[in-house]
């Protein structure tokens, strides 16, 4: 697992989410990327019910990533993270009395997976309660694990098909200690997705963005 950058791609004016995604696919294929199956990332939100303190309860997010098919990842908002095996979902059902599943808050991103040499590109449609809300693009450079060493290369590569909407260095990487060997891992990816999902959740529903 290399360095990953997840960003949101704005929907082109006058086009639907689907059309924008297809446009991205086309660009990638023109670049020489090869389609390699599909991917999905989903996120469920849980409220802590048995909250005694005065402060508002933290939200618990349980996420899955098709890139790590046997794992189940749990994250608190800015708090500790946990990687467990798939049985964690069953455990959450058992913990119903402590963590309430917020049904309407399930977010997921599905789409195609492209490979271009050492780059892995995933263009996904973010859906929330069966309505498309936006487009996520994940770019992974698998040849390197140190974000600072390959960020410029990744940026340049992303410019080649995203144009101007290239993000800055993700905050999860910039917060890492400088000079130390701090390899990127799947948690960084999931944090970025979580950030993106919560950003999209806050957005207004885009006009005319139903899944077709």
């Amino acid at each position, binding site marked *: 697992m290399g360095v990953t950058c997840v960003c949101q791609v704005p929907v082109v004016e006058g086009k639907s989410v689907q059309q924008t995604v297809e446009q991205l696919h086309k660009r990638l294929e023109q670049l020489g990327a090869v389609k390699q199956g599909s991917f999905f990332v989903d996120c469920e939100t849980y409220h802590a019910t048995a909250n005694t303190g005065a402060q508002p309860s933290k939200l618990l997010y349980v996420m899955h990533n098709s890139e790590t098919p046997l794992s189940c990842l749990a994250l608190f908002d800015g708090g500790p993270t946990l*990687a467990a095996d*798939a049985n964690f979902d069953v455990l959450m059902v058992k913990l119903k009395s402590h963590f309430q599943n917020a049904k309407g808050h399930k977010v997921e991103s599905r789409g195609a997976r492209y490979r271009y040499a050492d780059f892995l590109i995933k263009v996904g449609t973010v859906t929330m309660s069966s309505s498309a809300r936006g487009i996520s693009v994940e770019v992974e450079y698998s040849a390197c694990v140190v974000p600072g060493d390959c960020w410029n290369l990744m940026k340049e590569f992303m410019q080649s098909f995203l144009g101007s909407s290239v993000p800055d260095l993700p905050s999860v990487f910039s917060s890492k200690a400088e000079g130390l060997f701090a390899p990127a891992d799947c948690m960084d990816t999931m944090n970025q997705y979580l950030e993106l999902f919560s950003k999209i959740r806050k957005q207004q529903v885009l006009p005319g963005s139903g899944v077709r």
Partner: protein
Amino acid sequence: MNENSMSGVPAVRVSIESSCERQVQEVSLDGVETYVPPLSMSQNLAKLAQRIDFGQGSDSDEEDPNGQSRVSDWSKQDLEGEEGLVKFQPCSWPWDSVRNHLRSALTEMCVLHDMLSVIKEKKYMALDPVSQDPIVVKTPQVFQLISKKKSLATAGQLLLRGAEKLSKSVAESQEQWRQRDFNAELLHLRSQWKLRKVGDKILGDLSYRSAGSLFTHHGTFEVIKNTDIDLDKKIPDDYCPLNVQIPSDLEGSAYIKVSIQKQSADIGDLGTVNLFRKPPKAKPGSQVWHLKLEAAQNVLLCKEIFAQLSREAVQIKSHIPHIVVKNQIISQPFPGLQLSISLCHSTTDKKNQRASPDKTKPDDHLYVLEHNLHQLIREFHKQTLSSSVMPHPASAPFVPKRLRMAGPMAYDKSEISSLQHSEGLLEKIVKQAKHIFLRSRTARTIDSLASRIEDPQIQAHWSNINDVYESSVKVLITSQGYEQICKSIQLQLNIGVEQIRVVHRDGRVITLSHQEQELQDFLLSQMSQHQVHAVQQLAKVMGWHVLSFSNHVGLGAIESIGNASAITVASPNGAYAISVQRGNIDSKQ
């Protein structure tokens, strides 16, 4: 006191003793009685003797020197005898017998006295020494002999008895050894093999199932008591009370033979590999059954290896399908080359020991691969064993440990697939065979070049640290005698499974295929290039002028192994010029 003299006939002797009561000597004023101490034996005797009225028979007691007076005495006594007896009786004199004895003793003494006096005269009697018996003189010696003989006999008897005991114990121990102990032997067996009791049979397990084998052969043997021994005859040395019966298909000895041959045009002779080996010599101290079981277990393992290989050979799809014929698997690692893996199983019967024509063939075993096959199957066993090993987290799925870690460690797809994918035994062994073949052929190519071409010289340094799939050799090309002037060419050849990677000194990496010709061409090209460089260096040293030098003459793209190069040098005075050009075949001058 004797009272029997009253009855005259001493019928029953009744001894009467004085009472224990002591006589009171004195009673003191305070009432304490002082007793008279009891008489001792001699005092008692004296007391009694005092009572004897010696005066009664005083006539007889008084010795008369002449016999006449005595006679008159006796007659006088006789006269009074009647009266004396009457008087004597009532007083119940207790010392009567004593007196009688004394009297008879006195008579004897008188006779002796008379006789001695007669002898003194030496007229009628004489004293003669008693003639001594000669035997009596010898007696001590005879006695010695006799006693010696006796003691010797006793000693001999003791020894004989000991010998008898020893021989008995030897016989007993032999008997015991014979009986030995089926049970002791069984215990010994039990410590080394798995046994269980089924009904009245004892069955053992020689399969590798407990080690992780999935082979379906039951691999059981039966333990039987060896009773067919004649107790009267001498017991053979290798007699063992315990015998094992192994399944008939595991008897004999077996081994896996791996060999690489040039492809034979005739395929009709396949599957008849039949090589035999002598059974291994028994190590001293190891039981017959142990050897038997070990051999059987080896046969079982060989069978398992072969079964696994043939299953894979059928399942795996390769460009050139693997052929499984009878007890042979044939695979083609490289064109024109065949790898044959065969199971040689020989039963110990004599009929199979016939001299087979195969024996004349050179021994083309690839022992390394045979050994590796055994290692691989054991690794395979270990894998299956460790897959369901306990302890195991209660919440985790039943998968191998590394796969179990995939969830919490968040392995991605490629890592998981690398965990799940495992190469089969056949694939591994074919790869190893390819590598071994490529390595030996590389060595042969270099050696043949080195022996064929004297200038420049080619040296190969083989690294002795290598992997089953990779080894490396360092090749040096030098000109003999000019090592100081011209640098040698150093090449590092990394021999892999399918190809050879050559790392040039300048960092170029050239990949050669398994074709022998490619390597040969490359080495020749390098040697000729070395020659051109040598000419250049030599010209400089000798003061010749280099007129032109080009590493790449000709047109077109640069070939991977290097292009033709040329050099032209002129003599110092310019009278002569030499042009050296090398193509890709050889240098010419």
